[in-house]
């Protein structure tokens, strides 16, 4: 495996609060360990106050940690200074929630801005790069407009084009879609995914919305009170959240699932998680027919993770050969978690039939 493009080792950062010299220190990040694989779309999610902003300012090298090490693209950020630091910052393209475009400059000039900061003087070279970038984000017709003449989604596309100008291997998006409506969010996320696929760009998405992570991220780290609460593949974290903070974020994205015990459901209540092709298999009706297991749907969620379909259903089983049914579900690659066991254990084949066989 190639080494991660960004790694944080035991990173701690705190800010002084209250009057200088007197107030106590407020720990924003506490011993954070994080590895972001090259070429991933990596989500970092957390509620407000979880330490996201601090993490952004550390990753994009605007601030230094109190302790710990941050490596970006093979360089230890703690050892670079001066011009080298400025160069390393250019290896991370930044996309901001509020776009942060220069209002006094046209779209083309905004995209050219990082090139000028990097010392590119050749006007034809800049013009060529700018028109290439505007083409990529679909804004070729808007080159000579000013930012105030654009919609939010268009402004963010300018922001993305600008971030890519110096061909950084990393794109760091700080709540890049939080100021956009759902439709525009989808189109901007689509663009990010395209850039990831076609340019091999590593995209780091900082967000408070699980829905954004669900739509495009490969992996996700959940930040809670300055610590990494859990990290893993989006499918695992989204469908089987372990940390309470993650559960809250998932619930916000999908709404409350029905709570089985309040429905007075009897019998054997399980949570079934279908992912990918399994989502489309009519396995529950097979179980009903062949194992004689009746099922009641108590609640659940259906949707996609990236483009992969999933279903997570809370089901109450009654009657029939439930052991066989469960085995069959597991064999089909469906994850089964028991929420409530029926009194007296999980029923097997009815005794009468069993007697017949004997």
């Amino acid at each position, binding site marked *: 495996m190639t080494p991660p493009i960004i790694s944080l080792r035991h990173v701690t950062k705190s800010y002084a609060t209250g009057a200088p010299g007197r107030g106590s220190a407020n720990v924003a990040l506490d011993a954070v360990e994080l590895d972001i694989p090259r070429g991933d779309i990596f989500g970092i999610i957390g509620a407000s106050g979880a330490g996201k902003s601090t993490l952004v300012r550390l990753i994009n090298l605007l601030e230094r940690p109190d302790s710990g090490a941050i490596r970006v693209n093979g360089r230890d950020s703690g050892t670079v200074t001066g011009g080298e630091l400025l160069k390393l910052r250019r290896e991370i393209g*930044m996309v901001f929630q*509020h776009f*942060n475009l*220069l*209002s006094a400059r046209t779209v083309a000039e905004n995209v050219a801005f*990082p090139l000028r900061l990097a010392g590119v003087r050749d006007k034809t070279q800049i013009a060529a790069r700018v028109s290439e970038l505007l083409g990529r984000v679909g804004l070729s017709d808007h080159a000579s407009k000013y930012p105030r003449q654009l919609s939010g989604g268009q402004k963010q596309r300018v922001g993305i084009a600008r971030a890519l100008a110096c061909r950084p291997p990393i794109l760091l998006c700080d709540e890049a879609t939080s100021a956009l409506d759902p439709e525009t969010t989808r189109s901007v996320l689509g663009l990010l995914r395209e850039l990831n696929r076609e340019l091999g760009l590593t995209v780091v998405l900082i967000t408070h919305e699980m829905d954004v992570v669900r739509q495009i991220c490969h992996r996700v780290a959940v930040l809670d009170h300055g610590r990494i609460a859990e990290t893993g593949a989006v499918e695992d974290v989204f469908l089987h959240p372990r940390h309470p903070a993650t559960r809250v974020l998932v619930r916000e994205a999908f709404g409350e699932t029905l709570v089985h015990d309040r429905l007075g459901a009897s019998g054997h209540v399980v949570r079934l998680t279908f992912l990918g092709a399994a989502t489309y298999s009519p396995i529950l009706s097979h179980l009903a027919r062949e194992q004689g297991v009746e099922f009641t749907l108590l609640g659940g969620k259906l949707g996609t993770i990236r483009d992969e379909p999933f279903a997570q259903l809370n089901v109450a089983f009654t009657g029939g050969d439930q052991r066989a049914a469960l085995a069959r579900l597991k064999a089909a690659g469906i994850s089964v978690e028991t929420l409530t066991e029926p009194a007296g254990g999980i029923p097997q084949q009815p005794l009468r039939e069993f007697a017949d066989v004997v």
Partner: protein
Amino acid sequence: MSFDRIDWVQIGYAALDTLAMLGGALFFTVLFGLPLGVLLFLTGRGQLLQQGAVYAGLSFVLNILRSVPFIILLIVLMPVTTLITGTSLGVRGVIPPLVVGTTAFFARLVETALREVDRGVIDASRAMGGTTGQIVFHALLPEALPGILAGVTVTAIVLVDYTAMSGAIGGGGIGDLAIRYGYQRFQTEVMIVTVLLLVILVQLLQAGGNRLVQHFSRK
């Protein structure tokens, strides 16, 4: 009261003197005030070159300059003016005190205009690997240009006011005429004409300034 007695040629020369004082003083005010304002902004709390001591010192000096009434400043600065321009009279003799009187004021206006610039723009420029100099010249000043131009306009109008006052100590210009003829010789018609001229000048400055601000506003 009769307007026949008015010496229009004299008024014409006085008007030119006023414009010369205004132009010269405004030029030097911007020349000194703009960098001071930028420095004030950059050394301020939470800014790129945060330097508490420098900011406090600069702020203190600027406040002192602004708290001295202009008419006192004119008199106090006479030796300095003579040293710089060789005279403390006429157009050349009032430009130094005018510049001293408005530079501090203008520097504050520049600081305020820069503070109005979206912080995110500075963050973005830093994240793109911009140096402080690049950020000032390529991001901060262009973004703050409308605000700075509005500051120049206000400063120009304050200067018109001050040139009239400097007439009192032999500075010349329209204000000088107003005091010597209109007030001391009871030629009310001169007073009326000069005041009218000043009113027109201020109106023109404000309208011109507004148009410039409008032209450069992209927000």
